[in-house]
């Protein structure tokens, strides 16, 4: 009665897919489109690369007058604050300025002077938030929804899929996955975890019917220089790439929480297992030597 369908698309600099079961192709398309539209809406609203985005407007006004933001943006800023608190300041939504010194395409490791110049522009605790009013206090400061924007889009797209009528399927935004229901026969989806050192290989799999699986890794955007791997997850204190984990995967009821913890775990490096265990969420991490570590239930 229900047939499987998959719709691939590119968004948020990632390869994305909506997988679902529907009675016919017309409905499958309509349902998937509702999810894809929601992803595009969030991308347009919060991309730092788009001149007309909310984030671009906030960043342009850095050091100047406060900007007024809508309820959705306020809620996301509140979540950025929760990430900052939960990570002891490691997850900092203003640390995106470090990308000015890092060029992952050319593979240039910035020198200390370049990082020193940027460090004063980092500091979530200095961001002035008061209801709908938001102000980045210093010119040059930048806000960046990386680390939770894509995950939020996965949750919202899943909600759109469900509201449209789908009951079986998941949204995959570049590896950040949110499911809305099991396969039509009741069996969970099997979500494989990519091998961080072999793009075609997998290291483990999670069963998922509802809820989310997210993975952060050092293999998404990186370059190697003098035998050292520099990945895109940057520690706001040193301005340098994190080292410890090849990848961290977390299962949570919603993607924005799963993704938040994977990024925090990358940033906490060797201290991550203690925090992850405290959450009670299932997790799996691949260490510097390729060894697997996982939550008690997964071991």
């Amino acid at each position, binding site marked *: 009665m229900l047939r499987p369908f998959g719709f691939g698309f590119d968004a948020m600099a990632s390869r994305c897919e909506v997988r679902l079961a529907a*009675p016919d192709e017309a409905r499958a398309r309509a349902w998937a489109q509702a999810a894809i539209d929601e992803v595009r809406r969030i991308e347009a609203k919060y991309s730092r690369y788009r001149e007309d985005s909310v984030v671009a407007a906030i960043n342009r006004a850095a050091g100047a007058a406060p900007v007024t933001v809508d309820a*959705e943006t306020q809620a996301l800023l509140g979540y950025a604050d929760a*990430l900052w608190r*939960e990570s002891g300041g490691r997850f900092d939504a203003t640390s995106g300025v470090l990308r000015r010194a890092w060029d992952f395409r050319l593979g240039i490791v910035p020198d200390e002077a370049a990082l020193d110049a940027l460090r004063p522009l980092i500091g979530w605790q200095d961001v002035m938030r008061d209801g709908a009013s938001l102000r980045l206090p210093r010119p040059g400061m930048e806000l960046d929804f990386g680390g939770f924007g894509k995950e939020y889009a996965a949750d919202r797209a899943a909600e759109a899929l469900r509201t449209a009528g789908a009951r079986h399927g998941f949204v995959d935004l570049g590896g950040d996955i949110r499911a809305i229901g099991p396969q039509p026969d009741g069996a969970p989806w099997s979500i494989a975890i990519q091998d961080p050192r072999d793009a075609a290989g997998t290291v483990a799999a999670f069963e998922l019917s*509802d809820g989310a699986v997210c993975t952060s890794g050092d293999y998404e955007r990186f370059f190697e220089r003098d035998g050292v791997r520099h990945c895109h997850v940057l520690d706001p204190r040193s301005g340098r790439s994190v080292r410890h984990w090849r990848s961290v995967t977390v299962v949570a*009821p919603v993607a924005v929480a799963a993704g938040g913890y994977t990024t925090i775990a990358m940033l906490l490096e060797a201290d991550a297992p203690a925090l992850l265990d*405290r*959450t009670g969420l299932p997790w799996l991490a691949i260490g510097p030597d390729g060894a697997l570590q996982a939550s008690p239930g997964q071991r």
Partner: protein
Amino acid sequence: MTTSDASNASNAAGTDAACATLPAPRGGAPLAPALLAAALALPGVSAPVAAQAPPERAQLDVRWLHYQDSQPGLKRIRVDTPSIGLRVPVAGRWTFEGVTSYDSVSGASPRWHSSVSSASRMSDERTAGDLRVTRHWDRATLSVGGAYSSENDYVSRALSLRGSVSSADNNRTWSFGLGRADDRIDPVNRIVVDERRKTTDVLLGVTQVLTPVDIVQLNVTHARGSGYYSDPYKTIDSRPRERVQTAVLLRWNHHFQGPGATMRLGWRTYADSWDVRSNTLTGEWVQPVAGGWTLTPSLRYYTQSAASFFYAPVYDPTLGAPFPEGYLTDLGAPRSPDARLAAFGAAAIGFRVAKAIDRSNLVDFKAEYYEQRGEWRLGGPGTAGLAPLRATILQVGLTHLF
């Protein structure tokens, strides 16, 4: 005694079927992670809840319930009820459900109170059928059901309408219900002929997800009935022809992350126009263990006050049993010696074992022991001189998903 009374007795002593309808708190979602609470505060982000989801697979239930009660020195009512239920989802938006059951009741009809002399043997049979059609929307359901049961002296027909509406985040569900029952009583002793009893009931409820591991539910039910309530097989049994009943049920389910178990607590308080006031406390611990087994120990305590017209086993010195003291001085007054209208307390202890054999088959077995005594009442004296009533309930079931 009519067999519907016997089933009522087994209901009062047996499982609270409605207890199972409260969804378990979402497992897997711990209370602790600060980020999860923050994430759920985001607009349009909600944790997975399948509250309104229609069932995906057809389900067949085959069940056998055995009830036996006794008073000291006397095995009383024995009820055996096999039943078959089928639930079929259609087009993802509809569910059709049907249950048919057959009771065979045998044993001694109740004594006036506790005396052995008047216990007579009885046996009866009852067949019952239930049909329900439910329409599912994304955040709402509406269902219409009909029920019919028949035994040689008692026919009951009921219609009900039920619905539910959930909030946008699925964390709150309002439910309502409206029911109407029309019973016909034609006792074999022809003490009355073609008597009727009509009952209308309404239900309002709200279920709220408080945290990822806590769900609470509040239900209020109100019923008004009029007609023949007396027991035609008791010599002295004349009850008012109106009954107004109100009950409030409060339930709390809490999931414990560590042991992966769910605690279910419930409190029900009830009052009616016959001056019966009752309170029920229930507790269950649902513990999944390895190998697909689930163990559920349960405890229940019940206490009630007597109906205003209940008469204790104190008989008229001239007329003797079953005539109450002063019977002749007030002939028209309502009176009943029915032990279920006495003041008493009761406790039940139960244990359910369920085993998921595979993704499609589940077997379960439940045993419960129930005992009621006048002196176990709380909040006032119990009816003195009532023999304790003990009951055992055994239930075995097989559920198959297609």
